[in-house]
């Protein structure tokens, strides 16, 4: 895993020295705001999955599908609002727009995945951007998680309208984020760094009546 240049595109490790501390977009909120602990009475649980690898893929569906299958073993969701996960559930590919997909992989894998995708794509017309530093992933679970979402977004989160394996970009508390449902009981929110602090405080406020707890 080293720096490789593909034509005019340089890929490089964004965190070459592990002794340099990293801060998630939510670190300010965690360090300066309130962090209610999860208890047995918490009916909504909030958990940040910090420092995952986020990649934006752009290009034609057919050419990207082949490369993503080869590198990640996931077929690219071709239908609008699709979300596909690998067998372990750790890697996912989400449809964002007709020519744009979001790939999320465990932290530290993003450079390797990007380089293998570039190798597989060759001279095809595409773009890959590492956006790991710009956003973070948050999980909401618990019996009242859906009610918290209903208070926050105009999007219909009823299970009939929002089945497992769907993901949308939508309005959330006047900000915007990506809302997705990888499993039956867990919701994922992909937050922009600049909105993270605000959305976190909103979620705590909205979840107060459900005794929301933040898991470390």
């Amino acid at each position, binding site marked *: 895993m080293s720096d490789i240049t593909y034509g005019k595109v340089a890929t490089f490790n964004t965190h070459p020295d592990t002794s340099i501390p990293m801060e998630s977009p939510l670190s300010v909120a965690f360090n300066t705001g309130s962090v209610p602990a999860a208890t047995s009475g918490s009916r909504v649980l909030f958990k940040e999955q910090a420092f995952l690898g986020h990649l934006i893929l752009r290009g034609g569906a057919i050419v990207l599908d082949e490369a993503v299958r080869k590198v990640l073993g996931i077929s690219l969701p071709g239908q*609008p609002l699709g979300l596909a996960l690998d067998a372990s559930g750790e890697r996912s590919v989400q449809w964002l727009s007709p020519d744009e997909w979001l790939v999320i992989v465990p932290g530290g894998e993003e450079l390797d995945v990007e380089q293998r995708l570039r190798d597989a794509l060759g001279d095809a017309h595409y773009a890959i951007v590492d956006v790991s530093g710009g956003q973070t992933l948050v999980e909401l679970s618990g019996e009242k998680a859906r009610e918290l979402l209903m208070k926050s977004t*105009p999007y219909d989160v009823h299970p009939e309208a929002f089945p497992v394996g769907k993901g949308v*970009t939508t*309005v959330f508390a006047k900000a915007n984020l990506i809302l997705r449902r990888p499993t039956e009981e867990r919701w994922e929110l992909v937050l922009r760094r600049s909105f993270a602090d605000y959305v976190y405080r909103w979620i705590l406020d909205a979840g107060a009546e459900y005794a929301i707890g933040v898991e470390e």
Partner: protein
Amino acid sequence: MFYIHCPYCDEYRDEEEFHPKGQAHIARPEDPESCTDEQWGAYLFFRDNPRGIHHELWVHAIGCRKFFNITRNSASYEILETYRMGEQPRFSAEHPEGKSAEQGAAVNVADEAGVVAGQEGVKA
């Protein structure tokens, strides 16, 4: 509050996610250098403001971020259809009830016939 159908996400979304971007189907002059000032000014600055059916460009700003077209009634605010870039509207001031499905089907049949004829031509 409106629910607007995004032709790319293929579902109805809240109005809050969209932004209007003005009149649709404005073609840029192919050769700006040879335009008169009047033609170029009309292209840049002058827009229709009809009472009734109007074609508009909108963007699904908080969503797929794609531009698409809406046929809208400026008097009643009714949204008659949304369609992708490059497609032609079914409703227009000349066809306020919409081009009938038969007309549309006729076009498709003609197209298919043309394709078949072309294929046969290739075989021959």
